């Protein structure tokens, strides 16, 4: 196993075939992972909110689905990745708490985060080849730089590689 690089909340990181990117305990946040299988360049962003344009406090680009994907692509390009090769995998976007009568908007933030990531990737023509989103439980994810596999583990909901 290569270098393990931790991606925090509202953070993004990249690596090459030697590295593993991980983010621990994803809840309503979404882990957006990109991989270039030709150049073996991997990137991961841990976003918290769908849209930077709706928030005043939007200096941290890694916090939002829309801006984080742009920055992540640029960071991978700097490492030699080619956006035309990029493919995406998504995980997270859970609804951790449920209130009666549909609850308020904030409770559906996980779903909105996942949707925003897919829309942005769609607009950039980056295919989402696998995803494990939704549910009501947390996820820890690991993206392997050697082949782009995404390992997902949970508490009580098993683990899988996508």
């Amino acid at each position, binding site marked *: 196993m290569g270098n393990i690089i931790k991606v925090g909340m509202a953070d993004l990181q990249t690596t090459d075939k030697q590295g593993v990117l991980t983010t621990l305990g994803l809840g309503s946040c979404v882990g957006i992972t990109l991989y270039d299988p030709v150049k073996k360049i991997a990137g991961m962003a841990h976003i918290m909110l769908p849209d930077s344009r709706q928030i005043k406090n939007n200096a941290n680009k890694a916090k939002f689905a829309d801006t984080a994907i742009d920055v992540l692509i640029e960071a991978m390009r700097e490492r030699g990745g080619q956006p035309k090769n990029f493919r995406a995998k998504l995980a997270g976007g859970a609804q*951790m708490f449920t*209130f009666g009568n549909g609850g308020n908007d904030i409770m559906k933030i996980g779903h909105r985060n996942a949707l925003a990531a897919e829309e942005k990737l769609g607009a950039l023509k980056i295919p989402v080849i696998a995803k494990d989103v939704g549910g009501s439980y947390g996820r820890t994810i690991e993206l392997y730089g050697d082949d782009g596999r995404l390992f997902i583990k949970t508490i009580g909901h098993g683990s899988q590689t996508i």
Partner: protein
Amino acid sequence: MSIESLNQQHIDVLKEIGNIGAGNAATALAGMLGKKIDMDVPKVKILDIQEVAEVLGGEENIVAGIYFNVHGDIQGNIMFLLDLDSSKLLTNMLMGKSSENGELDEMDRSALREVGNILSGAYIASLVSLTNFNIHHSVPSLAVDMAGAVMSVPAIQFSHISDKVLFIETELKEGKDLVEARFFLIPDEPSFEKILNSLGVY
């Protein structure tokens, strides 16, 4: 007003809310258990969002989060957080059992929701008495999961107004048993100003 710009006076006021709130909560818990509950002076902490899970023993540490919707004169949420050991201790105390069993069963979960309900009610009562606001809270929702995942919900709410989160940490003790409890008060942005305003420190 943002969390970054809070000064010492703001923090003292928030600490006082925490103090009175936790005091009420301890009294309520003592009544429920029929035991004497000691409480230490709460700590008010302002942390970077990345640091929150570390405080809770790491992102993958299993915690119980009991979450409420707050409405009325202010809008927001309250999270009452316990680590797994404290959760078991509390439910065991409450139901007079001494199980060492690792899992929380449905009965435990229901008891936890009830504890959260009572403690948060006590906490809100202190906020009401200090501010004269009319505040209600919803029925609780419980999640037992990785700390990072549970905390992502309040972290996301805080993230609308700041890259920092504010929380009040308190320890409740019954004899030698220590229950570490944490309250997060998460007002929306206008409500945050309203609270400080009503306390004369804005």
